[in-house]
């Protein structure tokens, strides 16, 4: 068996595409990078034999791995991926800038937030219509695009602005999605998600998986870069190899930010298309128009977010008595 044939998503274990992309792939890539460095002679506690890394020996070692060793590698990778899975949310929040207080101060959280605010204000200035009476078509389109960009990348209230671009992309989504209909997106989404249509859910899932995969890669590759730096500490100029996973981490973080913008758009669309399906699933009467809809959805959001009970005047839809259906006719008859 070769390394290449071992790199297959073990979906028969119930992992699935998401678990492979988000969980296993980053850990597998990291493990292989560090193993190759180790096989090439990188040892943090001593200089490599001959003073240089030997990648030909590393490839030879990799190619000679037995079935048992490959199985052990895959099990180890899967185990790490499973252990990291519950931390995915915390990991994304870390990348959003939700840093523990002592570390937050040390990492310049305030300075980073001020930088993000400056970018937000620059976009807001471009989106402003200073003199509507003298507006040209070109100026209007530029301002419109800047306004869309502002709403996509930043939450509207300044106090919600976070230290990182990823944090602000997700804050923009959580601040804006469903708002036009009175919903608090964070409170409503766990209830809306199960009633999404197939096509909407496919788009939402795809973009969420891309976001989570990129975020996981950014974190895992950053840790890999640090581990590689430790392994290569006594290897002279080879230490520069530690920049590879760090560069990959930076690239993955940029990908996570763009994936968050795309995910935000998908969540907005999900609210647009399926918000009334949510009311049907809750057996609530469909509101007559936008204003009563906003009132009802604000009440639901209060209930889900802070436990405030619904207005006692709220009405459930009457129970439907099914009518007998005519036999549609099939190739072999209908059974029940």
């Amino acid at each position: 068996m070769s390394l290449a044939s071992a790199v297959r998503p073990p979906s028969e274990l119930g992992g699935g595409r998401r678990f492979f992309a988000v969980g296993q792939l980053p850990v597998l890539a990291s493990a292989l990078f560090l193993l190759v460095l180790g096989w090439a002679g990188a040892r943090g506690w001593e200089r490599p034999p001959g003073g240089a890394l030997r990648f030909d020996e590393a490839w030879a070692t990799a190619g000679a791995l037995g079935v048992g060793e490959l199985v052990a590698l895959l099990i180890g990778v899967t185990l790490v991926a499973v252990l990291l899975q519950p931390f995915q949310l915390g990991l994304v929040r870390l990348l959003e800038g939700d840093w523990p207080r002592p570390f937050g101060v040390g990492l310049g959280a305030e300075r980073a937030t001020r930088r993000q605010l400056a970018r937000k204000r620059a976009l807001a200035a471009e989106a402003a219509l200073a003199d509507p009476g003298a507006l040209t078509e070109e100026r209007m389109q530029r301002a419109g695009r800047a306004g869309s960009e502002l709403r996509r990348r930043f939450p509207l209230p300044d106090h919600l602005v976070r230290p990182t671009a990823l944090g602000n992309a997700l804050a923009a989504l959580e601040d804006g999605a469903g708002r036009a209909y009175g919903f608090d997106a964070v409170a409503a989404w766990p209830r809306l998600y199960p009633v999404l249509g197939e096509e909407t859910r496919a788009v939402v899932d795809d973009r969420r998986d891309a976001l989570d995969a990129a975020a996981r890669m950014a974190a895992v590759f950053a840790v890999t870069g640090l581990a590689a730096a430790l392994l290569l500490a006594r290897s002279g100029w080879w230490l520069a190899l530690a920049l590879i996973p760090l560069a990959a981490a930076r690239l993955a973080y940029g990908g996570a930010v763009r994936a968050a913008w795309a995910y935000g758009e998908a969540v907005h669309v999900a609210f647009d298309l399926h918000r009334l399906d949510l009311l049907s699933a809750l057996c609530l009467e469909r509101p007559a128009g936008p204003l009563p809809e906003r009132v009802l959805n604000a009440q639901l959001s209060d209930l889900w977010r802070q436990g405030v009970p619904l207005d006692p005047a709220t009405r459930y839809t009457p129970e439907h008595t099914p009518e007998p259906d005519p036999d549609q006719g099939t190739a072999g008859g209908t059974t029940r």
Partner: protein
Amino acid sequence: MIVDTDVNRARGLYGRLIDTAATRFGAALDLDPDDRADEVSRRLAELFEGRPGIEGVMLRLKGRDVGVATPQRVGAAEGFAGPAPEWGAGDRAGLPGRSGRYRPVWFDCAAPGCGAAEARSFYDERAVPACPDEAHGPMELRR
């Protein structure tokens, strides 16, 4: 009335039994919206066992086609009917962040002329604030 939501929900619920590429079927099985997935799987298995020649069974919800279940899919599902489980897929059902829409939950004393008010960060019927005047009892939620 059956709406697309019910059909879509059924497609998700019985996803592992349905072969989206299959178009031919020799029988149909009518479902109710609240039929359990494992029960549907069992009934399909019995149907295929009793009629070994049929290629598939159309699942229907009040006259609306849901999808064609095949013997291969029913056999592979082994008693499960939902879509193939994915580790970590549940993360998709929540947004990563926290709400920025918290508001004070106000309570007012119901006693005429009292005017006492208190705010809480959440509502729980077991923790309704009481008026400072003990005689007035618990306050009422302000809507």
